[in-house]
């Protein structure tokens, strides 16, 4: 379904992770959510971060995207620290990034076509193309994510959750990004639609050569899309390794989470929103 992109890509220097996070901290008042995150995301691979609800997975993603300013730490993309970067520099970096939000975050005042066109024009890298060419490109992107031209004039509210996510993915892919972020892409979808979305994410990595970072707590998704996996717990990355070893990590916290056991080191009664809050 996906085709490889012909655009030139900025590759990470060999051996260097595409995304490198060190000592990332973020607190809200006396609530510490991220408490010293260290994470490497290798280039051209799919990395998945798992963790319980309220553990700060989405917050971590928002810090990486510059939507929330962290208190401490560094976030490097291809060796460049993006924290404190100027607005124009960040906009340049964001043109290489695609993001699929948990609820797709489609612009509800625009049609599906206009949503995808927005992605195309916003990340056009200075290229000016006529409307007809852009519409053709938008239809091609919708086709890539398995949607026909009949959805183009519809409003997002007229689409199912799975279709909205696919439109969100088409919009995210419009700028031919080489780094992709997915925030709980299969949450709220039926198993078949989850498999479709997972397939699209895998295609982005294998066929487009993109680097992907996915936040999820869907274990089936992890095994389907992940090359590498990491677990966020207590405001820290407590485990990271190949995704195919996640279910047998040997770490009691990871094992309890991945197997959904009630007994183990993760408290299940009187749970706080975030274990880091106890500090």
């Amino acid at each position: 379904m996906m085709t490889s992109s012909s655009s030139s890509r900025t590759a990470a220097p060999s051996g260097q992770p595409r995304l490198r996070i060190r000592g990332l901290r973020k607190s809200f008042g006396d609530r510490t959510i991220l408490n010293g995150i260290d994470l490497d995301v290798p280039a051209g691979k799919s990395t998945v971060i798992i963790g319980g609800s309220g553990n700060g997975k989405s917050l971590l993603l928002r810090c990486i995207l510059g939507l929330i300013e962290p208190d401490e730490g560094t976030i490097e993309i291809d060796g460049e620290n993006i924290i404190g970067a100027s607005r124009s520099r960040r906009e340049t970096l964001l043109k290489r990034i695609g993001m699929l939000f948990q609820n797709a975050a489609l612009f509800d005042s625009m049609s599906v076509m206009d949503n995808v066109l927005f992605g195309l024009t916003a990340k056009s890298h200075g290229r000016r193309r006529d409307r007809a060419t852009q519409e053709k490109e938008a239809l091609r992107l919708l086709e890539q994510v398995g949607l026909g031209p009949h959805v183009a004039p519809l409003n997002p509210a007229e689409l199912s959750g799975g279709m909205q996510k696919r439109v969100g993915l088409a919009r995210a892919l419009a700028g031919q990004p080489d780094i992709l972020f997915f925030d709980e892409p299969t949450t709220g979808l039926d198993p078949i639609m989850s498999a479709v979305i997972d397939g699209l994410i895998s295609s982005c990595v294998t066929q487009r050569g993109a680097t992907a970072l996915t936040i999820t707590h869907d274990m089936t998704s992890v095994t389907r899309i992940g090359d590498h996996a990491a677990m966020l717990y207590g405001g820290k990355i407590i485990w990271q390794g190949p995704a195919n070893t996640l279910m047998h990590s040997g770490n009691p916290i990871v094992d309890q989470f991945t197997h959904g056991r009630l007994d183990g080191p993760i408290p299940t009664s009187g749970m706080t929103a975030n274990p880091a809050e106890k500090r």
Partner: protein
Amino acid sequence: MRALSLPFIFLGRGILGGLHHAGALSLFALRGLGGIFRLPVYGQVILSCLVEIGFLSLPVVALTAIFSGAVIALQSYSGFSQYHAQNAVGGIVVMSITKELGPVLAGLMVAGRIGAAIAAQIGSMRVTDQIDALNTLATDPIKYLVTPRLVAGILALPFLVLIADILGVAGGFIVAVGKLGFSPALYIHATHASLHSHDVLVGLLKAAVFGFLITLLGCYEGYNSRGGAEGVGRAATATVVASSILILAFDYLLTDLFFTA
């Protein structure tokens, strides 16, 4: 001792909170206005905001102006006739409308109709991650959402007030001639004699300020709304209340500045 200091604690917190809010609003306004001087120009967004704020507000502003002019004509006639000063009715109508009622009533109507809509629109975009999505699409949400609305507010309100001025005077004319038995020629003459370009221009200036305040508050409250649908509702209410109060406060300040010097 603690009980005695409580009122001062609340007062201090209130003052600090108010100053914080005013500072944040000023910075937000500067960022919004700063967008006018940065590329790209979202011409189509500005145009659609002009239609929404200006053209679609026309019916409500027009009706308000017509009835206001009509009421002033009736009220001033009943008062002035006691002193045999009925001839002043035309002048009173045109002065009231151009100096005060045109800009203020149009401002209040637009605050209710557009201020709340802007706050709800941007607020729902905030709580559904659409503003974050704009950011990730390398688009400055202030430049894309706020600047066009500020520009449209500043341009559309004077246009609305100009029409309100004309229709308000027409409302007074209809009542004076049709109901109170005034001669059309005499009424028009009295109106013309009291119509001053300075009054109209200051009224239009007031309208531009009100347009800026309404759109600024709508954008600010919407942009900073939190807590789902309830938060969006609070933002809409806060916009209408705050912009109504600010319209009246700035009306006083501008009147003091331009008409009492």
